């Protein structure tokens, strides 16, 4: 790197965590003149975090270049390394990807890391047999509106604690069944959310027929519209490949593909574990949405009434106003990721970010147990949202990673006032429209909402519109 760049990095505290950079001209177009050294960050402890987060912010905004390894000429968008059968991917493909230059190309509304305009919708596909497509036909892909990442670190921490609870319940049931020689049925409940039930048998087999809204490995996956990503890290690695053709070495590198340049972009090990950690740190520390502070009196009054209606109607049975969180310490790697996403056992020590030290933590309420109350308005559970009469959200034809097509993760409503349009592909321009589109498990609440007089329905809208992502963030 050039001396000028080096001086800037030193000033930003970045030099200590960057490694491997060749000296380059000060006008270098590349994003990755050097890479973040995971071990150095972990060893440095909290002192390295500001620089790590700053680097993550840079990377989130950066437009990756050919010289960085952008584009995936010979690889598909698949979650597992998959070569194209033949031919070469175009540098950009609006539909099957790579479809953007930067993370912020989509996640920018109303602030960096937020949601996006419909124009930024993406078209997700498994990327195996029909990896390349030039049609928006849902038989090829599922169109998705951008999910805001505000408060994502808190969301992941909630999911981790829920996973731990569910697995502990399973293990306890198995132990009791083995000990007693009898079937043991257990409700799977964590943080007040019931994920159905299981039956453990004395022979160690567990019957998951009664499972509801979570995968059979009992991992609560809080990211993506369908809830198929366990961690920000896993989501980030996937997104880098799908949208930018930037392949992280921890999944597409030599351990799992035999190649340092699996996609044949010409750039070996384009994204290092440290680079991914920078992106994770940035996302994990994004402040959560808040309640709009400067509401005019009529709106404040209506929102207060709407908040009550939200409970009364039953919306809050899935869109849980708060979820309790025991710890705000975010560790990277995450505890429940599997091979291909950096795991605890693959690093000497992990990176630890205490979110309670961040300014937003002061705004979080706590319960009498000292748990942090995370106002996400979700249960982090999947639900069927379509029925025979109300099926506007049933517009997909493909299951996604074992999740059936009409089943979606309860969207987090914090910030919903800032993230129009609505629905998994942004089909609904107004809040009333998306509420009316709720079928399936949410049908009862939607019907109750429709039974309200218009003025009372408006209060619900007023309440939801008050949940915003502050642009001052």
């Amino acid at each position: 790197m050039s001396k000028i760049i080096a001086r800037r990095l030193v000033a930003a505290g970045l030099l200590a965590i960057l490694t491997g950079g060749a000296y380059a001209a000060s006008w270098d177009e590349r994003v990755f003149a050097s890479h973040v050294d995971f071990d150095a960050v972990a060893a440095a402890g909290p002192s390295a975090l500001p620089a790590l987060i700053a680097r993550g912010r840079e990377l989130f905004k950066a437009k990756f270049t050919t010289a960085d390894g952008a584009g995936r000429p010979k690889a598909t968008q698949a979650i597992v390394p998959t070569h194209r059968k033949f031919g070469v991917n175009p540098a950009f493909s609006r539909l099957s990807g790579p479809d953007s230059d930067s993370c912020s190309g989509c996640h920018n509304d109303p602030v960096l890391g937020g949601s996006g305009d419909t124009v930024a919708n993406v078209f997700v596909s498994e990327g195996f047999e029909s990896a390349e497509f030039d049609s928006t036909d849902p038989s090829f892909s599922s169109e998705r509106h951008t999910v805001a990442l505000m408060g994502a670190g808190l969301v992941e921490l909630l999911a981790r604690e829920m996973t731990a609870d569910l697995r502990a319940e399973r293990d306890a049931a198995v132990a009791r069944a083995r000990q007693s020689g009898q079937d043991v049925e257990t409700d799977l409940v964590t943080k007040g959310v019931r994920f159905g039930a299981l039956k453990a048998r004395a022979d160690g087999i567990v019957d998951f027929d009664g499972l509801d809204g979570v995968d059979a490995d009992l991992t609560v996956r809080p990211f993506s519209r369908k809830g198929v990503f366990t961690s920000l890290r896993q989501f980030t690695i996937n997104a880098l490949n799908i949208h930018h053709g930037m392949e992280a070495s921890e999944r597409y590198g030599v351990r799992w593909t035999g190649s340092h340049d699996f996609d044949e972009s010409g750039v070996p090990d384009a994204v290092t574990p440290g680079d991914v950690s920078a992106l994770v740190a940035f996302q994990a520390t994004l402040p959560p949405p808040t309640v709009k502070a400067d509401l005019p009196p009529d709106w404040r009054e209506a929102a207060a009434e709407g908040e009550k209606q939200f409970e009364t109607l039953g919306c809050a049975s899935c869109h849980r106003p708060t979820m309790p969180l025991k710890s705000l310490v975010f560790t990277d790697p995450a505890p429940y990721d599997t091979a291909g996403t950096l795991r605890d056992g693959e690093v000497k020590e992990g990176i630890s970010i205490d979110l309670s030290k961040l300014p937003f933590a002061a705004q979080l309420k706590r319960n009498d147990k000292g748990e942090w109350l995370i106002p996400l308005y979700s249960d982090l559970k999947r639900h069927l949202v379509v029925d025979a009469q109300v099926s506007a959200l049933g517009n997909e034809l493909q299951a996604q990673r074992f999740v059936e097509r009409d089943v979606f993760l309860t969207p987090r409503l914090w910030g919903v006032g800032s993230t129009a349009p609505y629905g998994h592909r942004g089909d609904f321009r107004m809040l009333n429209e998306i509420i009316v589109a709720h079928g399936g498990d949410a049908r009862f609440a939607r019907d109750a909402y429709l039974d309200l007089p218009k003025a009372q329905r408006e209060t619900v809208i007023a309440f939801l519109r008050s949940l915003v992502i502050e642009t001052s963030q």
Partner: protein
Amino acid sequence: MRGLCPLAIAAVLALATAPAFAEPQLLLSDVPVMHEEAQAAGLNQTYDGAWEFFVGGGGAAFDCDGSGFPSVFLAGGKNPANLFVNKSKRGGPLKFEEKRIDVDPRLLIGVIGAYPLDIDGDGLTDLFVLRVGENLLLKGGPNCTFTLANKEWSFGGDEGWTTSFAAEWEKGQKFPTLAIGHYVDRFAPGSPYGTCEENSLYRPQPGDRPNYSVRTPLTPGYCALSMLFTDWNRSGAPSLRVSNDRQYYRGGEEQLWRVEPGKPPKLYSRAEGWRHLSIFGMGIAEGDLDGSGFPDYALTSMGDTKIQKLDQEQSEHGEFPVYRDIAGEMGATAHIPYIGGDKRPSTGWHSEFADFNNDGLLDLFIAKGNVAQMPDFAAFDPDNLLMQQWSGKFAEAGDKAGIAENRQSRGALIADFNLDGNLDLLVVHRGAPASLFRNLGSNDGRGGVIPPGNWIEIKLAEPGPNCAAVGAHIAVKTGTRTQMRTIEVGGGDASGHSGWVHVGLGVAERAEIRVQWPDGEWSYPYRAFANQFVVVDRAKPQAEYWYPGR
């Protein structure tokens, strides 16, 4: 093989058969860290003895107590065979406890090896015990108990020098068909040269209990050191592949018997495509290396190992059993020791394909060891751990993995003994205690251990007598890749295992499992998450997850 053999000739022959020795391949994949802990685990068993026990040296790994953890029964040759019950905890150090088997102790002497299978369909694993003398059918009972069932099952013992075994359920049969392979007839004039005993096939006779009163000879016998029923062309009717030791036969070769239900077994002929191959055949391993749907075979020998692949063109896509040797191009001839500097040919015994680093590629383990003191073959001849690379070729990792011992290895058992998802390894040695390697994970290149790839372990169950679904094929699909496994009884060097079928998944978090049941019917796809034990019961609509109790 006796020390008086004309070994110089054997060595020359061994090398002459190698068409193209493999160039060492670059090792890019994870290398497992294999920690030897037999003594600490309480597993102390030595296979030893005179000439009869230069060969064999195997055992069986199987769940004998319903815990899901594989216990082991190990041959001892002149020493008693022993049962070691697995007391390990999930992910922990290996631990075994010796348990007495309630049969005449004299019958546990002279044991060559063993294979586990549920002969009577009662859900409890039985054992076929290979011996010098009368062979044993040990009926499994609860809590790792066994009773001798030769009489109950009308089995005369098929007396001889038994060195190989295989079993299958022929269509329409309630009980398995047993193939028994013999070595030299020690009492024939001119023994040992040209005096290979004929082999035997026992088909179950009608009735409600196993009845093996009728023997069908498999003639000629060419000193069979390994046998395997294998559905080589996916016809649904497995054939019997026999690997023979050319040290003692005259005019012999490798064999493939057509074993069709209700018909006498018949050797595949030249006219049917079977080609002459004469090796010191010691152990057969089957695996579908490239997901072609047709199995490949590793055949150990003295000198180079063969890897036989069905020649799609000449076999007319499975019409004829025409194979070509791809060991050279795959980097897997393993013909001389890879460390130690001894340039004399290796002696290979047990072979088995398995995924030791969970990267989704089958690796190849080969047990090695001089017959006794054959001067023209390598004295220090470490076992091979050939890791398959993404290029499709194999790279040697035996020394880096920590299994390159100075022992005379024979049989081996590859199983997940502590149910942590990583395959462990038990190696039986001649004249030395067995080694037990716990797979700790992958070497991080800095002296540490990191977790390997994702995995899944699968157990099949179906109603009826063949309740472990021997003969079933399992297809595990992740993305565009499909890995195949087959439930078989036989192969290797007098060693076999039953129970969990391990499949490495690499970075895949999910897999779809399809089963082709022994009657040929394909299941629908079962969805399963990685790093789980999955039971696929044909009688149930969903695959089920299983969890260890300790």
